């Protein structure tokens, strides 16, 4: 019988990380972005492109696939690949896939990457939708005027507000926290300070979401190199073990589980993730939570059991998630909200940098165990997350 505890706990490790500049217009194609990030990650790992024998990526038909990239980079012995359709909800699944592949020994070195021209070419907000392969259920939403993820997540946020009294200010504190963390991050797109008043003054996108509830649209790429944990020990950086991973079901309109949007869909995957990792929420030092919108952060703090339902606003007011002094620093780089929308792979980059102790001014005090999540499970019906641990 299947058991999440059988995940090859800590047997694979992130040995290298790489990224491009994050911008509003990269000026190059996604092929080039992906190649740059992969080359940077492989070099960071102290390896050669000829050592790579696997690739894992994801995207809603807006990127470059492993077969093209492999041959362009001279990787002639590709023995493993994943080209997962869809976006943030599946982002951490490729980390889990890579861990399975290298621990099983069917591949030695899998590079996980995400490359997109998310601002200058194919935008996620519906205006680029005509060029994407649409999920099966989208026509049923579009006919009702629902074109973009912002609207669906805002529906969930509203339900939470109705049930728990969550306010705009509560969501705003998440935006402000993210911005504060981005100020000293050289990769971040948004480095101008933001106050709660700035947040409240920003224009409506989808009430209850204002502009600063929404993540950025970004051109760029991130790649990370995954190898066997034993091999990682002999490479330059502190190995970042993939302690546990879980990917699978969330909630969408088809599965008849879509009955109360105020509940966090992250609670569906959290038990399997913690079982896979052999750890619980009390063991997590810091978390990089998928934040395409502010509300996702709040809902995941509940769903991954750092707070009781309705308990996050009080913790935000008590600075529980602040990078310097909080008991659970979150989105230490500014997240998708203020660093850039690399569809969650920039969360992995940041977590690895923190675990290595290489995060400079952003370095959190306790940095051995990180939770990194994909989109929490609404909209597509998928969710994914990993726990990373410093060796």
């Amino acid at each position, binding site marked *: 019988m299947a058991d999440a505890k059988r995940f090859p706990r800590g047997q694979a490790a992130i040995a290298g990380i790489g990224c491009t500049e994050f911008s509003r217009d990269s000026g190059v194609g996604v092929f080039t972005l992906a190649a740059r990030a992969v080359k940077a990650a492989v070099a960071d790992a102290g390896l050669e492109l000829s050592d790579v024998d696997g690739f894992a990526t994801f995207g809603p038909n807006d990127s470059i696939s492993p077969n093209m990239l492999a041959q362009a980079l001279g990787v002639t012995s590709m023995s493993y690949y994943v080209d997962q359709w869809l976006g943030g909800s599946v982002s951490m699944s490729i980390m889990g896939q890579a861990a399975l592949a290298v621990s099983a020994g069917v591949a030695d070195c899998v590079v996980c990457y995400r490359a997109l021209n998310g601002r200058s070419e194919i935008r996620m907000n519906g205006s680029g939708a005509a060029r994407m392969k649409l999920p099966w259920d989208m*026509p049923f939403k579009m006919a009702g005027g629902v074109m973009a993820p912002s609207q669906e997540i805002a529906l969930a946020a509203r339900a939470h507000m109705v049930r728990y009294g969550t306010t705009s200010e509560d969501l705003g504190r998440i935006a402000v926290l993210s911005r504060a963390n981005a100020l000293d991050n050289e990769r971040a797109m948004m480095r101008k300070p933001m106050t709660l008043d700035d947040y409240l003054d920003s224009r409506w996108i989808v009430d209850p979401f204002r502009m600063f509830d929404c993540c950025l649209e970004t051109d760029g790429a991130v790649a990370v190199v995954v190898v066997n944990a034993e091999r990682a020990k002999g490479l330059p950086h502190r190995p970042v073990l993939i302690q546990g991973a879980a990917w699978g079901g969330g909630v969408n309109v088809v599965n008849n589980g879509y009955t109360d949007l105020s509940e966090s869909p992250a609670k569906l995957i959290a038990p399997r993730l913690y079982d896979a990792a052999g750890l619980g929420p009390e063991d997590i030092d810091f978390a990089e939570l998928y934040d395409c919108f502010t509300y996702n952060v709040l809902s995941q703090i509940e769903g991954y059991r750092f707070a009781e339902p309705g308990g996050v606003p009080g913790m935000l007011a008590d600075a529980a998630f602040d990078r310097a002094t909080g008991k659970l620093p979150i989105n230490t780089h500014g997240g998708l909200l203020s660093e850039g929308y690399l569809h969650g792979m920039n969360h992995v980059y940041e977590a690895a940098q923190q675990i290595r102790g290489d995060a400079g001014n952003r370095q959190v005090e306790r940095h051995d165990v990180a939770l990194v999540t994909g989109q929490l499970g609404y909209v597509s019906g998928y969710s994914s997350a990993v726990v990373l641990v410093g060796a």
Partner: protein
Amino acid sequence: MVDVAERRAVPVPDRDSAPYWGALARGRFELQHCRDCGRWTWPARAICSGCHGENLAWEPVKGTGEVHSWVVTHQVYAPDFVDLVPYTVVLVRIDEQDDILIPGRLVSDGEVHQGLRVRAAPEQITDEIGQLHWTADA
């Protein structure tokens, strides 16, 4: 007004969903009803949401329900909505079955709240395609 040819949000019927969009075009709100287990299924598909059988029939529903959640969309996400923003989208739990929540534009005026009673208001787009709006049930 936006020409139909330029519209992005027009549903593309497939073999399973064509009856749904077609009924809406004729002003009717119909869902698939299972002849075996009695459950309703939405979005349209050939598999019952309850027993997973294929013995489904298209039948009218009452067309009433209540608002579970709502948002007011200010951003223009497609040319279709240029003249409509800001518009309210409601997510409606239909009276027949509590696990079917269908989004749609609220086309009536007045304040929205959770629990607001609403009624289906189909709108024809083409001969074969309609879309579902909701209106407050006075």
